[in-house]
């Protein structure tokens, strides 16, 4: 078989697998919905088509897919060295919060958008990256498992958001919720119609991740360490450096995600901004990444598909008053079926 044929058969195999999994999962969800006494057909239609029925549904799907993409990368890249970054959520929160802090502080200077926006994105990158780097550093230097450190850092970041959003310097004094003042106009990114401009950043990130992971020496080193730490070290790869860089990149991507939420969607810091459908983007990011077995090239598709489900599931609640909890159950069931079927019938990539 030629390379190309192989690639096609692989894609076909994947399509079939994911297709079967989703059909089975929808079957189980249907039973669920029927038991609860709702119209199964309406429910399924709403679940799968809301994103595509209107330009509004589509743009909402994109709006969810973007932060989800970044949260997924935050998990995926450290996962390539076989470490779990559960802290995507915290890194998003921290990145977004620091963006607001810098944005509000520099606001009075009246810098133009051409300076402000890149600067604020940089703040997101650095702060998200540094926040994740803490976990990488603790692993490299003190051998502390990143699962535990990133869980702790999530709780810390959550308090940090509240601290900034209720602090005298930044809070919106009239709000009955932890919300800061608005960022200045020149700090905000615009929209193409209803599609947020952050989609450009997302595309850049997709290309960046592809290039770094598949084409650069760094990507090779990260993958190598993930595959065999001892062999990598024997052949000259520095573990400490690699794990710290991987966590930094993961965190930086989460940080941009947080930053974009703030400067493109909300225009200010709102407690609860990195959540969707009742759960944090971090958890969904982990799930999305694992669905595609941590393959960075598949992440954008998975993130989009997951957003379709999230948007569809949300509107289930709205249009049919199906309890929102059914939505969670559906998500868990779909993912579980996808991974089972993939594990059983997937070809793997080599």
């Amino acid at each position, binding site marked *: 078989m030629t390379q190309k044929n192989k690639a096609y058969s692989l894609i076909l195999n994947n399509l079939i697998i994911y297709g079967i999994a989703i059909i089975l999962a929808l079957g189980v969800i249907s039973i669920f919905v029927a038991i609860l006494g709702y119209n199964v057909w309406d429910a399924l239609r709403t679940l799968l088509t809301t994103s595509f029925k209107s330009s509004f549904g589509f743009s909402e799907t994109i709006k969810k897919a973007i932060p989800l993409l970044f949260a997924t990368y935050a998990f995926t890249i450290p996962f390539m060295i076989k470490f779990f970054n559960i802290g995507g959520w915290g890194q998003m929160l921290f990145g977004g919060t620091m963006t607001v802090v810098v944005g509000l502080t520099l606001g009075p200077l009246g810098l133009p958008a051409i300076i402000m926006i890149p600067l604020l994105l940089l703040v997101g990158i650095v702060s998200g990256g540094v926040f994740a780097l803490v976990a990488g550093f603790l692993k490299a230097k003190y051998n502390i498992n990143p699962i*535990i450190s990133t869980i702790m850092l999530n709780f810390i970041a959550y308090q940090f958001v509240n601290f900034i959003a209720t602090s005298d310097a930044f809070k919106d004094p009239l709000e009955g919720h932890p919300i800061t003042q608005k960022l200045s106009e020149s700090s905000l990114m615009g929209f193409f119609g209803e599609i947020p401009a952050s989609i450009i950043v997302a595309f850049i990130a997709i290309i960046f991740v592809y290039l770094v992971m598949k084409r650069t020496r760094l990507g090779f080193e990260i993958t190598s360490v993930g595959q065999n730490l001892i062999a990598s070290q024997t052949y000259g790869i520095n573990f400490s450096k690699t794990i710290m860089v991987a966590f930094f990149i993961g965190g930086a991507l989460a940080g941009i995600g947080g930053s974009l939420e703030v400067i493109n969607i909300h225009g200010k810091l709102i407690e609860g901004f990195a959540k969707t459908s009742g759960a944090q983007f971090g958890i969904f990011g982990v799930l999305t990444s694992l669905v595609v*077995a941590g393959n960075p090239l598949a992440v954008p598709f998975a993130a989009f598909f997951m957003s379709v489900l999230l948007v569809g599931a949300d509107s289930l609640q709205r249009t049919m008053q199906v309890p929102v909890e059914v939505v969670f159950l559906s998500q868990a069931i779909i993912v579980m079926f996808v*991974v089972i079927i993939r594990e059983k019938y997937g070809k793997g990539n080599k």
Partner: protein
Amino acid sequence: MAFITSFIESVLVYTTVYTLASLGILISGRTGIFNVAGEGIMLASASAGFLAAFLSGSWLIGFLAGALMGAFFGLILAFVHETFKVNQFILGICLVIFGSGLSDLLYKLVIGVRLSAPIAPDTLRITIPFLSKVPIISGFLNHDVIVYFMYAATFTAWWFFYRTKIGLETRAIGENPKAADVVGINVSRRRYLATIIGSSLIGIAGAYLTIAITKTYSPDISAGRGFMAVGIAIFASWKPQRAILGGFIFAFIEVMSFQLQIISDKIPYQFFLMLPFISILVIMVVFKKHIEFPASVGKPYSRE
């Protein structure tokens, strides 16, 4: 003295939650199953346990229901993992989301919307003659039955793992499942058992939240404590005797941070709320030499 006693008494309540949940996690971890579903299990069991206790009027039935719900989750985890070799982590996260949905759905179906929350029956309290009067010690021995259950569970788990042959074998699975397999130990069966038993302990921790601590159910009641329990299991190097220590330390710092918040005026309160998490990280840095992982945790095992 009275202050310290009541302080300890209060700490023990939260210690119970953390210890039971992390015991549950480490028991299956000792056979190589990394159960990160703690949060989902606690939520589902908090709901199921409360509903059972409320409807039956018996705290005991409530805890049994919580344990059963936990066992159900454990069974799913073990079954899907052992049958399809699906990554344990992804299953765990799925179950977290599943549990958080199931918890509210159950409550919604059974109770619905009410203006005042239903209340669980009182849990049996046990005091021990003399000892429950001695200052400080009484902080440990003046509690509901689940606190004593937590002591017993910890001791039993320690005894099981370090004083019985079956425990030695179970630990062997966690270190090297092949080594256990070749001497005729049924790895898969042990993994099922450990995951189901462990998960039912997590379930009891969840039911404890509603039946004993709040006496009623409220959404998202575990608020991330199921993930904390994973942290404590790691912190404890997957040893029962250290899980209770870890649970106690964490609960201690948590309770203390509120005392500090009252005393201090200057420091923003959010920093006190961060304190427990920062402390755990610092403690781990200091004791880094003592943190170990069973070698096979998280890894599937198949013969061929």
